[in-house]
């Protein structure tokens, strides 16, 4: 156990905490927008899978990582449009339609992978971008400032999302629609427009989250996300619908994943017990939900479709 506490191992554990948190963060920040406006998008995992495959396939064929990111974002956008049409225009029960979108993404990404790729070939992700000067700070520099651009992007997204939600008219409208759609409507805010916007934005970020996962891991396989999208949905509850809280949740998951990986490589935990360790995130989520729900109140109109009274 003593060897676990060497500087090198602590540094690499913290560094991979940020890497592991990245895909959760994109998806969960995106989901925060949707939920703040009153829409629960449970299809995140399926959208992440499609985004991950789209990015993986693009890199495989063109080697262009930016194009891959754009493809993943476009896939997310399209899925978001469909999701918004179902939940906003057609007022579909969100808990179930989301499962439909999940199954669709799970099946389609697997189908396309088997048909178009077949044997998994590794790809190169975004190279690490050492931030000048900052990366040279001993210990901290390596932990924080030696990552790929996609990792930095995820963490930059947090203050941006918080600013948009709390300090802009768009954010005010989003929150109003999520708390009291009738009142927002009376004040001339289009409930449908706001919700289309947040769902499409959220799904786009989910697509990018999938791309982040595939490019950071450098691989695609059936069900690559293994439920990350669902955890991202839970993270929004966990973070009490605030970007900063969501970030702490994502970091917690990243940390658990990083520690488990580190212990496994060091052979501290036997192979069999790593299955038990993999339970931790889910168990933590359940406990976190119990605690979070007692403390915080969810957006009042969450999962409730809005129909103008005649």
């Amino acid at each position: 156990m003593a060897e676990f506490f060497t500087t090198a191992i602590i540094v690499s554990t913290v560094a991979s905490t940020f890497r592991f948190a990245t895909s959760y963060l994109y998806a969960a920040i995106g989901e925060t927008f949707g939920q703040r406006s009153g829409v629960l998008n449970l299809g995140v995992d399926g959208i992440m899978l499609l985004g991950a495959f789209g990015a993986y396939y693009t890199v495989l064929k063109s080697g262009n990582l930016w194009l891959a990111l754009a493809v993943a974002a476009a896939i997310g956008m399209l899925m978001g449009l469909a999701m918004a049409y179902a939940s906003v225009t057609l007022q579909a029960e969100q808990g179930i339609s989301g499962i439909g979108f999940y199954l669709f993404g799970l099946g389609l990404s697997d189908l396309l992978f088997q048909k178009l790729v077949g044997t998994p070939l590794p790809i190169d992700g975004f190279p690490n971008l050492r931030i000048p000067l900052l990366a040279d700070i001993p210990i901290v520099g390596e932990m924080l400032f030696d990552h790929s651009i996609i990792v930095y992007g995820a963490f930059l997204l947090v203050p941006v999302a918080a600013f948009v939600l709390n300090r802009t008219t768009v954010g005010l409208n989003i929150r109003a629609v999520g708390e009291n759609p009738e009142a927002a409507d009376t004040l001339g805010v289009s409930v449908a427009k706001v919700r289309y916007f947040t769902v499409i934005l959220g799904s786009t970020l989910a697509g990018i989250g999938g791309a982040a996962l595939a490019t950071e891991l450098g691989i695609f396989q059936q069900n690559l996300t293994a439920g990350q999208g669902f955890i991202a949905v839970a993270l929004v509850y966990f973070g009490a619908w605030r970007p900063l809280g969501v970030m702490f949740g994502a970091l917690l998951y990243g940390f658990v994943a990083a520690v488990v990986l580190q212990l496994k490589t060091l052979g501290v935990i036997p192979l069999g017990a790593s299955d038990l360790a993999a339970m931790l995130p889910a168990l933590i989520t359940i406990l976190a939900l119990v605690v979070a729900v007692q403390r915080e109140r969810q957006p009042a109109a969450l999962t409730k479709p809005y129909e103008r009274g005649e």
Partner: protein
Amino acid sequence: MRRWAGAVFPVAAVVAALLVGGVTLALLGADPLEGFRAMIEGAFGSGRALADTTSKAVPLLLVGVGITIAFRANVINIGGEGQIILGALFATIFALAVPDLPAGLMIPALLIAGFVGGAIWGAIPGALKAYFNVNEILSTIMLNIVAVQLMNYLLRGPLIDPAEIEAGTRIPQTMRLAPSGDLPVLLEGTRLNLGAVIAVLFAIAAYVFLWRTTAGFRIRAVGLNPHASRYAGIKVKRSIVAALTLSGALCGLAGVILVFGSESHRFVTDGSSTGFTGNAGFNGIVAALFGGLHPIGTIPASFLFGALLVGANKLQRVVQVPAALVVALNGLVVVFVVSSAIWKRRLEQRYLLEDSAKELVDQPAEVDDG
């Protein structure tokens, strides 16, 4: 006529999903008609195919009926996967612990063990929802993840077939379980076993429970209007826990049948999240929705989706399009069914209006002479 008008929407949803499937086949360079022909042949083409379809439908039916009970209490149970696994684990551990029981006792004992295992995995999210206000969708999904990891741990460790360790192959599976637990095959030479009868009996029992008993009435009342139910003296929290517990219990039975009705008579997985269940916990939701969230309607619905799954394997062999297509199509069916609910509601509203209009016309107008 009107009674059946609501059924148009699920059927249309499946037809629409199949159309999308046809387009996908064409895009992937396969002949859609040949693909569909292969699917139909694979699912219904022979006695063996029909037996396979029925066997595939059994877990979907039990899960679907379970989901239906939860839905009727307005609780969404996404935890079928985990509840199936817990049911299978409980029954498997029982069979390993008490292998010498005669078949007459063994099979009922296994069913009870699985029922209890699934019930526990349903009661947890039920209690969390009722007493801690935790969203059941999220808690059931998390419990699915926990169950999968627990299964992987047990099948790779404590429950693994000793022969797998000796051979060094380490396939995550148990040894061949006690033969007295084998579910009797109904049709010689096929996989069709007693599980099919059990599933149908439980579907009928669930119908009787929901519509003919007080406890069932309470569950439906809570689902329709929890506030009114509370005023009427129904213990809402208790009904929510009961609905999810029963829902999980039925999924647990599906797990028992997946293990003890299998050809290998072992509990086997491949380490992936759906390696054991074959996604039955989610596909059961599709069947339940298609069956109109009615236990009896779920019987033909699960048969249809069993056929889709079995047909997909044939599709893969004949036109080389992966069976994963069916997973995607199932997702579309779900989206289409819940999205079309708005038109169903509008149709029902129109009927209601027409009826009240007719009543007004039929009644002799009261003439007010002043």
